[in-house]
């Protein structure tokens, strides 16, 4: 069953979708999904939510402030605002009567993977499992080099207030906040298992980023390489592998 929902974050409405398994007995585990940069809760997340629902796992997807259906302007988006949004949704989910509060996972794609990792660091006690799909931890490296992605120069953003990301304004808060972030320190409090998946043909976020992250987390992390996959898992075979591995990991962590 797919149900629209809304909850507040800093006075703005976050809009999303819940997928609730219909024939589950008692409370069910849930995955909260975090989308990537300039993306939305739709596309691959819709398919993944329907797959998870079929195996008895609920999911909650939403658009971050300033993205998709949610209130706010993209120019005001930052890592801090997205982590805050994620934690507000976590609090909302914990109050849902069908949710088993001891079995909540976070899943993030690209920049959403970064946000999921930071949110898990802040609420380690609430998160049973963490699933990172081509997490964009390279953002920190890019910002320090004065770029956002491959081509966009952000060195004058405090003068210009924004940079043009192909028809949408990226604001200075994202850059100034991002420059202060310490990836490993912020994720460190989270102590449960992490599944990291990354395509070795990803040119947006090179696989070495996840290799380094997996090394840092040693036995805590399971690193799965999807051979030939790009950043958006365009090939249906790669996407299926991603879904299969996600279901396998979550089923194990939720003890289904």
């Amino acid at each position: 069953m797919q149900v629209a929902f809304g909850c507040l974050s800093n006075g703005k409405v976050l809009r999303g979708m819940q997928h609730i398994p219909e024939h589950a007995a008692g409370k069910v585990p849930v995955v909260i999904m975090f989308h990537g940069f300039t993306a939305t809760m739709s596309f691959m997340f819709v398919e993944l939510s329907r797959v998870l629902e079929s195996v008895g796992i609920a999911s909650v997807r939403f658009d971050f402030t300033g993205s998709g259906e949610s209130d706010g302007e993209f120019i005001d988006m930052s890592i801090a605002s997205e982590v805050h949004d994620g934690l507000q949704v976590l609090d909302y989910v914990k109050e849902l009567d069908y949710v088993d509060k001891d079995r909540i996972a976070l899943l993030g794609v690209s920049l959403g993977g970064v946000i999921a990792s930071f949110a898990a660091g802040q609420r380690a006690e609430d998160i049973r499992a963490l699933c990172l799909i081509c997490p964009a931890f390279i953002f920190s490296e890019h910002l320090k080099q004065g770029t956002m992605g491959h081509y966009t120069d952000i060195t004058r953003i405090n003068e210009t207030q924004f940079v043009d990301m192909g028809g949408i304004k990226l604001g200075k808060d994202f850059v100034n906040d991002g420059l202060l972030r310490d990836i490993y320190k912020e994720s460190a409090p989270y102590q449960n298992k992490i599944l990291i998946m990354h395509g070795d043909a990803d040119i947006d976020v090179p696989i070495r980023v996840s290799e380094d992250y997996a090394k840092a987390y040693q036995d805590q992390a399971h690193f799965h390489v999807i051979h030939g996959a790009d950043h958006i898992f365009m090939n249906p075979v790669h996407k299926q592998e991603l879904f299969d591995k996600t279901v396998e990991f979550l089923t194990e962590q939720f003890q289904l």
Partner: protein
Amino acid sequence: MQTAIEWSSNGHTLRGMLHQPDGLGKVPLVIMFHEYGATKTENKFIYVELSRVLEQKGIASIRFDFYGSGESDGELGQKSLASDLSCARDIMRYAQTLSFVNHERIAIVGKGSSCLIASQLSAEMSAEAKAEGSVELSAEGKTGVKALVLLSPTVKTWNVQYTSELQAAELELDVDCSDIAVPAVSLIAGEKEDNKELVERYTRLYQQQLSLCTIANVSQVVETVNSREQMMEHTVAFLEQQLL
């Protein structure tokens, strides 16, 4: 007020968003069709912005995901131009049940591949209204579409089958519509777009009803902040002029 909506089309659930201005009385409505491979928010969320601006102006809007896209039932591989047209007819029927909508003032916005769906539905409604003996409001609220906005129209997508269906539909634009009501049309495209033949067909079809807005130095309307702002400004001004 932004509200999630859903309705059934051919046994499948379609999901979308309704933006309704505050206050009483009947208001005009804009229905937005997303392009192949996109969703109801459209590229860089332009449809969300457009809906919110229109709502402030007193114009309602509906955005939705076609079957096989976004939040709606089905998978991308299952959709076709025929299934999209069927969804478009269903959303128009749904819109005509809304009591707060002024049925004489309905406009459609299409982007990319969905421009052909918008113009096809508009032609069907005009023909239907003519068959009923009036192009004006009938007792059932059926009328022709008042205005069309076509953003970066194209017959090319990354799906070969869907593209061939679009190209066949493009040829049907060479029809004589002198005896049916033609909406006011705003076609907005980038100067560098590879769609000149399609633009010419639309120009022949709609003649003096069509106004063409070309945005310099871009190959689609949502390419830079500047092109987006020009597109948004032109679209809102046109819809205000036609609907209010």
